[in-house]
């Protein structure tokens, strides 16, 4: 441990770390463009200048190792002047078109200018004009004028994805970022460069102009695209007179699961929150009133009782699956988790997994069978199959089932007119719940967007059927889920805030 003094305050730092890491970890605001924790130092932007006692000139914090007894100043007349001059340099050819820039509001350049810049332009020659809005491919738009040449994107394709699509071409203040002639940016993680870009040079074609970022409210969630379960920020906003809309997903740093990045597939999966939603309840193919359909479902469950089979989707949360298990035990019904949503082509060695559901592990932990053979066995003498969180009716049709079929899901699907009962549920981002990923990490998704749709929350639906008023995840944990063997050492409170690995036997 080394002790360093920053602006008169002592902080403890790791010995072999770089200075900027320790400063950022201790909440000291150090402006930086080219440095990124996942990409390491590059030292080209010179923004992270700090004064170190004993050194003649200010030094860049991203390339200075910590030594014991360092005395550092990050504020003050001198350092502010240096920063202002560097910013002036960065902004010489910047078009300052913040009004039309999508980065405005989360732009480092803007922030630093407001912190230390605030100078009048001394430029009387025209600015360098470069090409604007170039489609790099993979939903990424490049604006070369706005680029500060920090090369984060270049380093990302070089070091992280190792696809080497981007590079800096031409010299001095004409240099710009470019793909190689005739090629496009194309790799499954390409859109991460949008988050990496500290300015508005790289913007998302998908998100462009849809909403200004300062209106967006971020919520924390878990991606349900594959069994990796990457941590996400869900940026949503409810405009006046409109429904709450999810505008984008952003990666949320989680050192155990996904680091700083997510795949493009997961990033764009926000669309299923807004599009193709099941809007009405259906009873025997007829549109029905929502409340009536709920009552009807209750009556159906009472009528078929032990003749019911719950076919659960692995996209359901741990709590929901547990509560369905409790219900099936009470009714004497069967429960199965069989699902064949695998895609071997999807998997790669970075984040993506072939299992495209987030919670398949939970079936194993809750001792629910999810193989096709046991499903065949279970379905034999059943009159009613309720598909929850899924709409793959053909799965059971293929097994020769001919009784009543019900579906509770949030997506619109073709066969809804043929089924006995269809009830819309809330989507993944509208309900809380725990998910166990492929590496046995249990995570809590706390994103609860209140959409103006008639849809039922499965936990409250189950609580009305079981009639015990346990509508929140915490209630479910307290009512018995938390006492299960695999969760013995885990508290709900800690799950809420941390990613915890479940100890397997």
């Amino acid at each position: 441990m080394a002790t360093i003094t920053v602006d008169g305050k002592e902080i403890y730092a790791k010995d072999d770390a770089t200075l900027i890491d320790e400063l950022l970890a201790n909440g000291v605001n150090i402006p930086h463009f080219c440095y990124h924790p996942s990409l390491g130092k590059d030292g080209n932007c010179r923004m992270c200048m700090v004064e170190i006692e004993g050194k003649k000139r200010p030094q860049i914090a991203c390339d200075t190792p910590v030594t014991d007894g360092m005395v550092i100043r990050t504020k003050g007349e001198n350092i502010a002047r240096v920063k202002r001059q560097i910013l002036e340099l960065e902004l010489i050819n910047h078009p300052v078109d913040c009004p039309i820039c999508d980065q405005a509001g989360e732009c480092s350049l803007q922030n630093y200018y407001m912190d230390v810049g605030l100078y009048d332009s001394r430029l009387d020659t025209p600015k360098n004009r470069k090409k604007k809005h170039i489609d790099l491919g993979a939903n990424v738009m490049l604006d070369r004028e706005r680029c500060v040449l920090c090369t984060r994107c270049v380093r990302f394709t070089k070091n992280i994805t190792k696809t080497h699509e981007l590079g800096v071409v031409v010299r001095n203040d004409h240099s710009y970022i470019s793909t190689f002639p005739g090629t496009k940016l194309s790799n499954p993680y390409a859109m991460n460069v949008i988050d990496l870009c500290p300015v508005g040079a790289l913007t998302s074609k998908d998100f462009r102009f849809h909403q200004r970022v300062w209106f967006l409210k971020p919520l924390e969630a878990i991606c349900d695209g594959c069994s990796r379960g990457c941590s996400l920020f869900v940026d949503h906003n409810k405009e006046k007179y409109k429904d709450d809309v999810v505008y984008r997903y952003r990666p949320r740093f989680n050192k155990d699961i996904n680091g700083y990045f997510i795949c493009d597939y997961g990033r764009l999966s926000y669309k299923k929150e807004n599009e193709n939603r099941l809007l009405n309840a259906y009873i025997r193919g007829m549109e029905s009133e929502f409340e009536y359909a709920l009552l009807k479902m209750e009556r159906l469950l009472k009528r078929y009782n032990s003749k019911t089979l719950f076919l659960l989707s692995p996209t359901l949360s741990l709590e929901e699956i547990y509560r369905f298990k409790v219900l099936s035990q009470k009714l004497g019904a069967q429960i199965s988790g069989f699902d064949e949503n695998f895609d071997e082509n999807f998997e790669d060695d970075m984040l993506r997994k072939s299992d495209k559901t987030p919670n398949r592990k939970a079936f194993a932990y809750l001792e629910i069978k999810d193989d096709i053979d046991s499903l065949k066995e279970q379905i034999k003498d059943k009159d009613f199959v309720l598909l929850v969180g899924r709409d793959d009716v053909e799965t059971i049709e293929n097994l020769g089932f001919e009784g009543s079929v019900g579906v509770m899901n949030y997506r619109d699907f073709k066969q809804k007119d043929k089924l006995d009962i269809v009830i819309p549920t809330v989507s993944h981002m509208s309900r809380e719940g725990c998910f166990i990923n492929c590496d046995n990490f249990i995570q809590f998704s706390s994103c609860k967007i209140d959409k103006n749709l008639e849809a039922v929350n499965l936990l409250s639906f189950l609580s009305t059927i079981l009639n015990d008023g346990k509508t929140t995840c915490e209630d479910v944990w307290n009512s018995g889920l938390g006492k299960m063997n695999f969760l013995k050492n885990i508290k709900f409170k800690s799950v809420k805030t941390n990613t915890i690995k479940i100890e397997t036997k």
Partner: protein
Amino acid sequence: MGIKIVPRYGKSLKDRLYLPAIFSGMKTTMSHFAKNLKDTSNIKTECYPEMQPTDITSRYRGVHRLTHRDDGSIRCVACFMCATACPSDCIFIEATEREDGIDEKMPSLFNIDLLECVFCGGCAEACPCDAIRMDTGIFSFVATKREDFVLNREKLLANKAFRGEL
């Protein structure tokens, strides 16, 4: 130091009798009444629809308008600064890609709900492009339906400046 002793009234017989004060008050109101009855032209009231106001200054905040560029196209780039600054949330914008090469972005929808607007001038103040102004001098807006009070992009662009476009 700095203490001002305010004289207290209401102790003398004249004050407590109230009637002298009442009569002096009535004298004042009567003098106004008599003066105005004799010659109504002294009254400052303007007979509005016949006499239009002449004292609208260039700083008067009337109904909004959207300004044009030199080539006559819309100046607004849909940066949402006005919608952000608006305290009554009465500006509704949807941005879209601008295809004509003049700029990158423009509003596909720009609605101002005059029934919700409080005419604070915050939008004109916030606009970085000088695209929205309140210098039309229009102080009276009437419609028969609520929907007609929502000015859309075309109506806003059609509004003219009170003293000619600057």
